[in-house]
């Protein structure tokens, strides 16, 4: 194996395909790992409910763009691949945007229409039923009997 770093290979009849350099691949991996650490670190800091969410999403978007651009070769690929991804993301964007607009604007005209009012009591009822029917044993499912990682993520 030669140590020369080819940037492209000939595929067929003058069509060349780009070859990503090892150095770039390694750099991207390191950046991705660092940002994984960063997103964990940021989540320890309380920035407020929505800001924390936005930062986590922003870091994830950044990491995802790196994967797309380099690992998935979008940087040197035909434009059509990026176009497909672009329209896909655009579609998802509309999906989220309009759904969330609806979910967050119900109260605007009449506040009574705002929040979900039905507490999911059926969960409790179903549990009670299952316990009564002998399908569930609540005592067996407390951390007192299974103590592996109950406190793992606390604070």
């Amino acid at each position, binding site marked *: 194996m030669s140590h020369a770093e080819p940037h492209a290979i000939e595929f067929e009849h003058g069509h060349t395909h780009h070859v990503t350099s090892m150095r770039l*691949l390694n750099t991207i991996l390191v950046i991705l790992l660092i940002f994984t650490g960063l997103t964990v670190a940021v989540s320890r800091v309380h920035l407020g409910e929505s800001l924390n969410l936005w930062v986590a999403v922003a870091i994830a978007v950044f990491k995802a763009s790196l994967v797309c651009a380099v690992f998935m070769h979008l940087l040197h690929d035909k434009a059509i691949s990026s176009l497909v991804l672009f329209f896909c993301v655009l579609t998802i964007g509309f999906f989220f945007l309009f759904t969330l607009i609806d979910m967050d604007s119900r109260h605007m005209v009449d506040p009574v229409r705002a929040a979900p009012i039905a507490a999911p009591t059926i969960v409790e009822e179903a549990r009670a039923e299952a316990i009564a029917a002998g399908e569930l044993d609540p005592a067996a*499912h407390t951390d007192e009997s299974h103590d592996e990682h109950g406190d793992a993520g606390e604070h």
Partner: protein
Amino acid sequence: MTTIPTTGPGAGVQASAEPWERYTHQPHWRNREDEFEGAKLGMWLFLSTELLLFSGFFCAYFVLRHFYPDAFRGASTHFLDWRIGAINTAILLISSWNVAVAVRAAQLGQKMILAGNIFFASLCGVAFLVLKLALEYFPKIQKGEVPGAFFSYAGGHGYDPSPYDPIFLSVYWVSTATHGFHVLVGVLLLWWVGWRALKGHFGPKHYTAVENVGLYWHLVDLIWIFLFPLLYLVP
């Protein structure tokens, strides 16, 4: 998707050549480049359907988190261990790097580097699944930390489960299980590609399957990049 023709114009290459050197293209394509580009376009279209599929989970996540922020915070910190999530993230990132290196190796005709990286990536996938099953799914099922009506976790360590906890667990289970299924499919595909790589099917003139399975594997990684902070790191 692709076959190695035993007859046709490609058969003229000397018999000692690797299969990839003899490969031409399927008869309905005009040339190999078109076939490669067509297959890749098809793969990107498929990947976009996968992203849209997962977007449903994310949409449900955002809406339900908007409704029940406290339950999401409590359930996430109590039921999920961010360390397992972080290790799994690293595993997937490294395997993605392996796959990217494998594509490069295919382009450069380095058969053993190609196969080695593919198999290492598939091992990472297996490790991901083992960690998920052994440290998350099985203990959770045992403790009753399951979604919906079957939720039977009665609390402990000062944690009093709220009736809203199963909602978070619903999102957690359906999204990670679907993702896990994709990892499983990816591992099987990697084995298929690795096995064909060992037989010499892939080289600079023909590496469509490596490229496309690689794209699929990166997508699996991509989705986890979003799932990890959203599920494991709710402050």
